[in-house]
């Protein structure tokens, strides 16, 4: 369980995250949605100690992220931000192997190798494993990064827009993979998503953010409604149920 209490972050005079108090349940997929500039990424960065908090606290299973040693946290929680610009020429396998760093500190055991192979297999990267990252397409690279954080084998996996750069096929397969990780491996996945329909279909819990605050939260059937989404995105959204799934339509 991730508990955020009064989390606040300002850049100069602009308050990006404004006293967010929210509990992200353990297990399943929690999606964070909301318009651009709502503070989703900043919030995720503070939860994962990549950014300092101006005010408030965040605990992960009772561990305060600002005081817990970073390497202890690295075995509980992993984070992948968006727009990962990498200058280092690493192979996919090297990159994924570094996911084991919190455990191995560089000396890989056979147990680590099993994890690495599993993560590579999980994201269908076996054929690309010896290729350098700079030789891959954006989507393949994105999958390699996700494989790395899965290889870190933490209870909590935080992903900021993991569907970036992915085409339909790979976006769907990524969400299925994440759902499998949540169900089969018992992981808690927190994702920032832009596509409300992916959020609707794959999430167990949705948090809506607007203007640095939590506007709504709850299970998809309570969040994916015309009223909530129209107000959240300030654009008319119609919600229809198709094959038992709630789909938002906003293409008028």
């Amino acid at each position, binding site marked *: 369980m991730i508990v955020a209490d009064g989390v606040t972050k300002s850049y100069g005079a602009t308050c990006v995250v404004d006293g967010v108090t929210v509990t992200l349940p353990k297990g399943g997929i929690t999606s964070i949605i909301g318009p651009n500039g709502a503070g989703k990424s900043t919030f995720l960065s503070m939860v994962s100690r990549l950014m300092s908090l101006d005010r408030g606290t965040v605990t992960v299973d009772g561990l305060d992220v600002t005081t817990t040693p*970073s390497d202890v946290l690295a075995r509980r929680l992993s984070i992948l931000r968006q727009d990962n610009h990498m*200058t280092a020429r*690493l192979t996919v396998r090297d990159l994924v192997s570094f996911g084991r760093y919190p455990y191995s500190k560089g000396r890989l055991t056979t147990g680590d190798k099993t994890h690495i192979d599993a993560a590579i297999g999980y994201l269908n990267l076996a054929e690309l494993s010896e290729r350098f990252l700079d030789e891959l397409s954006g989507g393949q690279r994105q999958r390699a990064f996700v494989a790395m954080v899965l290889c870190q084998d933490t209870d909590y996996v935080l992903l900021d827009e993991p569907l970036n750069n992915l085409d339909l096929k790979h976006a769907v397969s990524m969400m299925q993979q994440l759902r499998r990780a949540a169900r089969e491996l018992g992981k808690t996945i927190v994702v920032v998503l832009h596509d409300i329909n992916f959020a609707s279909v794959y999430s167990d819990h949705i948090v809506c953010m607007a203007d640095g605050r939590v506007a709504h939260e709850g299970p998809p059937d309570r969040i994916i409604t015309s009223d909530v989404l129209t107000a959240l995105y300030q654009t008319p959204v119609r919600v229809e149920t198709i094959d038992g799934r709630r789909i938002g339509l906003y293409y008028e």
Partner: protein
Amino acid sequence: MRLLILAILVTLVLALASLFIGVSDVSLAALLSTSAEDRPMQVLLISRVPRTLAIILSGSSMAVAGLVMQMIVRNRFVEPSTAGTTESASLGFLAATLFFPGWPLMGKMLIAAAFALAGTALFLRILRAVPLRDVMLVPLVGIMLGGIIGAVTSFIAYRFELLPSLLAWTMGDFSGILRGRYELLWIGLGCAVLAYIAADRFTVAGMGRDFTTNLGLNYQRVMVLGLVIVSLVSAVVLVTAGSIPFLGLIVPNLVSLLVGDNMRRTVPWVTVTGAGFVLACDIVGRIVRFPYEIPISVVVGVVGSAIFLYLLLRTRRHA
């Protein structure tokens, strides 16, 4: 692996060749036909072996310093001479010469290293203050900073009539190396070993601050370790052999093309290639105008800038 062994063999052959080039007759036959007190053996022990060792030590440690720098700055085109490090070390050495003329070389070197550390930290500070979109701007900023520090250094040296000595130690040259005047360079090798031990940390740091924090490493601490290694190596090489431009830039870049950037794998490569490259350049510098010599910094500068241009154009095509 087999390639690496081949590279080591080539470097060893170059090292052997380097021992037997020079005005004084030091050949295998001369060595065997005379006793240990005679001239050939003395030349070998006092001048040739120290020189070859100095080349190997400074070549490999400068190349590793360049590699470390590229990892922590996350830019392919930085190395001690494109980040203000060398110039700062030189200013430090000048300051030590002025204020503590009686100090042993070790003490002056440490002051040079402290200046190098401060100068490089300033460079990183500027980079953080001015977010640069273009990779090429980063080394340009470093070269400008180096230019400013270099100008200050020259001015002070001019005022105290130390310009000739300044020129002597900034111009890389192995011809003055004798037994007793190169041993500080072993510190450089120690730094290279340290870089190898911490290789994984540097690779992780090369992935950026967020990745580093995510993996539970203290980014700041890795940066400081890297800066200390880079500064020490730059200072040690500067006070013994003089500055060798481009070396820390081209060797890691060539190795990166071949085996990538996982430092656990590249440090041995960079060490060997750096030594081999400087050995080859030194041999060229000694042969071209035999019996005179061309300073190593000139040879490396010419060869290095050609390779640098090639790397630049290559990047442009890729971008």
